[in-house]
């Protein structure tokens, strides 16, 4: 897409619509982070489109002064695919919730990822159905008591990162609503990536799941649970890097160890670009839905041609040689191609 030299500010990305989320909703922080990030893209507003499904999170497009569509529940990736394939010149973003993307819309999500459509997919994961007032979602913790599960959910939640990796995603990342700097860094990497970029954003629902991610935000706890992934750096965490990530002794998983007890060479050095998805997958299993050892950052970022570029190439090569034909000439060619006969 054309990177036009436009000097825009966050304010340019604010629409005239009053923002209507509950006080304390994490969506505000994400909105503001994205509005402040957008100018960095260097793309004119008119060349950006946000497509969303239905949910609190999906009201997002209304508040951004770009093109936008608030579509129907779960279908944003499918609609965005049609848009992106037919308009590869646009920067197309998808905004979705955990219910929207992983419950009703799960199939469209995994198919967009395997195709590597050039969509930036933001999954606002608050582990609850916000808009419908508090039912459990496919990311709600096992046993969660919600309006629809009064004695506790018996569904094993998805690990969205693992699911995306199982679906051949070329870019997978996770971040947190409240950490603007981190959010920006992940968005930056996603925007630079050619292909589907899947970003899980832990988001606080102040009304129906308040504080779900506090452990990742609270200065008292966050250092001991947040595992910040940085490309090329050994994976350590804790207030003073006292914990680190190493291989399971004989297994294929990862585990957490005391940095002091581990030779430096055994600490995993993070590499977003490992060709096969096994490494990122392994990393995704480090944390459980209890949020202990939660990696944030880019899990995987590997190059693969985008779906639309390949489609465009096929179209272009089919059109080779008729570049100057007028539509009516093409129509004549079409009608007369193959078997015809003439009477009279």
């Amino acid at each position, binding site marked *: 897409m054309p990177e036009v030299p436009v000097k825009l500010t966050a304010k340019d990305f604010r629409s005239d619509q009053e923002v209507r989320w509950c006080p304390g909703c994490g969506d505000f922080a994400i909105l503001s982070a994205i509005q402040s990030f957008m100018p960095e893209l260097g793309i004119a507003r008119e060349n950006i489109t946000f497509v969303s499904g239905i949910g609190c999170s999906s009201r997002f497009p209304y508040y951004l002064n770009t093109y936008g569509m608030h579509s129907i529940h779960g279908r944003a990736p499918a609609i965005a695919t*049609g848009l992106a394939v037919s308009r590869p010149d646009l920067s197309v973003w998808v905004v979705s919730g955990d219910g929207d993307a992983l419950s009703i819309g799960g199939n469209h999500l995994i198919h967009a990822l395997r195709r590597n459509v050039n969509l930036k997919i933001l999954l606002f994961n608050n582990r609850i159905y916000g808009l419908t007032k508090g039912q459990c979602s496919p990311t709600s913790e096992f046993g969660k008591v919600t309006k629809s599960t009064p004695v506790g959910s018996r569904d094993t939640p998805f690990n969205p990162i693992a699911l995306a990796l199982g679906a051949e995603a070329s870019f997978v990342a996770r971040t947190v609503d409240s950490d603007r700097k981190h959010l920006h860094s992940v968005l930056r990497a996603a925007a630079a990536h050619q292909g589907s970029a899947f970003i899980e954003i832990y988001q606080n629902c102040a009304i129906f799941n308040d504080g779900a991610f506090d452990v990742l935000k609270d200065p008292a706890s966050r250092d001991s649970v947040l595992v910040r992934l940085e490309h090329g750096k050994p994976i350590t965490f804790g207030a003073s890097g006292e914990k680190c990530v190493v291989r399971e002794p004989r297994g294929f998983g990862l585990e957490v160890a005391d940095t002091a007890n581990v030779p430096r060479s055994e600490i995993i050095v993070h590499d977003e670009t490992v060709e096969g998805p096994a490494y990122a997958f392994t990393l995704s299993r480090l944390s459980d839905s209890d949020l202990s050892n939660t990696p944030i950052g880019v899990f995987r970022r590997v190059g693969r041609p985008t779906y639309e570029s390949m489609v465009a190439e096929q179209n272009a090569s089919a059109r080779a040689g008729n570049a100057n034909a007028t539509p009516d000439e093409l129509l004549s060619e079409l009608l007369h191609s193959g078997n015809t006969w003439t009477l009279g």
Partner: protein
Amino acid sequence: MAKQIQHLDRVAIRFAGDSGDGMQLTGDRFASETAILGNDLSTLPNYPAEIRAPSGSLHGVSSFQVHFAAHDVLTPGDSPDVLVAMNPAALRANIADLPPNAEIIVNTDEFTPRNLEKVGYTSNPLENDSLDGYTVHRVPLTTATIAALADLDVSKKDAERAKNMFALGLLSWMYSRSTEGTVEFLKQKFAKKPKLAAANVAAFQAGWNYGETTEDFAVRYEVKPAQLAPGTYRSVNGNTALAYGLAAAGLRAHLPVFLGAYPITPASEILHELSAFKRFGVTTFQAEDEIAAVGSALGASYGGGLGVTSTSGPGLALKTETLGLAVMLELPLVVVNVQRAGPSTGLPTKTEQSDLNIALFGRHGEAPLAVIAARSPADCFYAAVEAARIALTYRMPVILLSDGYLANGSEPWLLPDPADLPDLQVEFATEPNGPDGKFLPYLHDPHTLARPWAVPGTPGLEHRVGGLEKADGTGAVSYVPADHDLMMRLRAARVEAIDVPDLEVEDPSGDARVLVLGWGSTYGPIGAACRKLRERGVSIAQAHLRHIAPMPKNVGAVLAGYDRVVIPEMNLGQLAHVVRERYLVDTVSYNKVNGQPFTSAELETVLEEVVRNA
């Protein structure tokens, strides 16, 4: 021995055999030569429901019917005058459709005890009196073919497989079709396998010679060319014509066409055809399901293309929620629905007209859109162009109804001059249209009631759309009661605002008291029935609806001009329902829902009865 030549006005021939016998190719070839001769014609294949049934089984029979005449032809023919039966299964499966005295050409080689038993013949019909009412030609097609190819370097299996060309040669002789075309065709088809080419040509010629030399074939027939308009023709079935129509619409609109589709019988061929039209500005996307298919098409329309999705009943059912969104977004979208028989999975390979209800009423809330129907295979082309015209001009989803009968049936199509097709160019919005330089995405054109189409990439027109109710003009989400009421009525008015031509009535005698009203693929059999009735001096008027939503403005007046309105439908009365409701006319319905198209003969009887009682 010089053969007698007999002139015929029309003939219907059915080629029937095992799935592996190449009957579709044979029939198609015969039809091509027939078309080039200048006969008008109509063809219909009949495939087994299974992909490939066990050979020699009843349900594995595949057939192809060609109806050709010295005048214009409206249907593939009710019942074949000639049956080519390549094996006992083909005979047994088709015999009931034959009129008395029909000619039957059987491949005697296949009438072995084993094959007879497979299809439940307890005695050989060629040896008992069960075929006494027919003219039966007993031809050892297989052995004759093998014998004819004895000198060629082909395996026995390949030789045997050429027997369909032997049959074609024989039929070509009988009906005085020329041979050059087929010989040329075979050479091209087997260009990479010259031995097979030679074998098939030889079989074909042997078949011809068999007719010429065998005493059993005493008569040759001739069917004079029809008075067809001069010009270039091609043979199309409904699906092909529809695909050409969609591509043509894109070219006439100067817009790329984006087809989002999920395979489904009998609509898949539209996807197949369009996927080969990249050169003509068509992008196809095989989506993960029908919801994604229509969603992607809507996304493409939002991006400024002509979004199209093609499907059949079960797929349409899945698309309904997204169609509601498309109605709200007021964007162009063409939804092609090739109807098939039955609720649920039903009878996927059979035809029916039972999706009119879901097309008209199958959305939650009130989400009106345009519904049109094609009437013949070639008409699918024009119906597709019309669907695109409405979608683009009025910015709304249009459901175009075809069906399995149209999809598979073929007829010659006189190619139009591109310039004669409507100019479908649209103007995208490029400038703010509101006071104080604002852009009002839902400001409606006073005539078309269409809103501006402002596509992403247009600076200054950034705006948000969605499925929530909105205020007229600004398009901003609105919970104001009056806004909702207004928009509900506006959406209904938008459909009624579509400019559609008046319903035309064919009433040659001018004194008919009964009108037969149809829609869709029944056009052929209804027309043929009316023609026969009129030939017999019975007055009857015929009108056929292309536009069902909106209805042409004159329909009420037309109906009022007749004592009785009869509506034949391949459903239990869906158009009748609409007509009764709208015009409070006590229509007479004739309904058949057995997966088969109407025959003109049955309609002739039914209509005559109505006329008699009118």
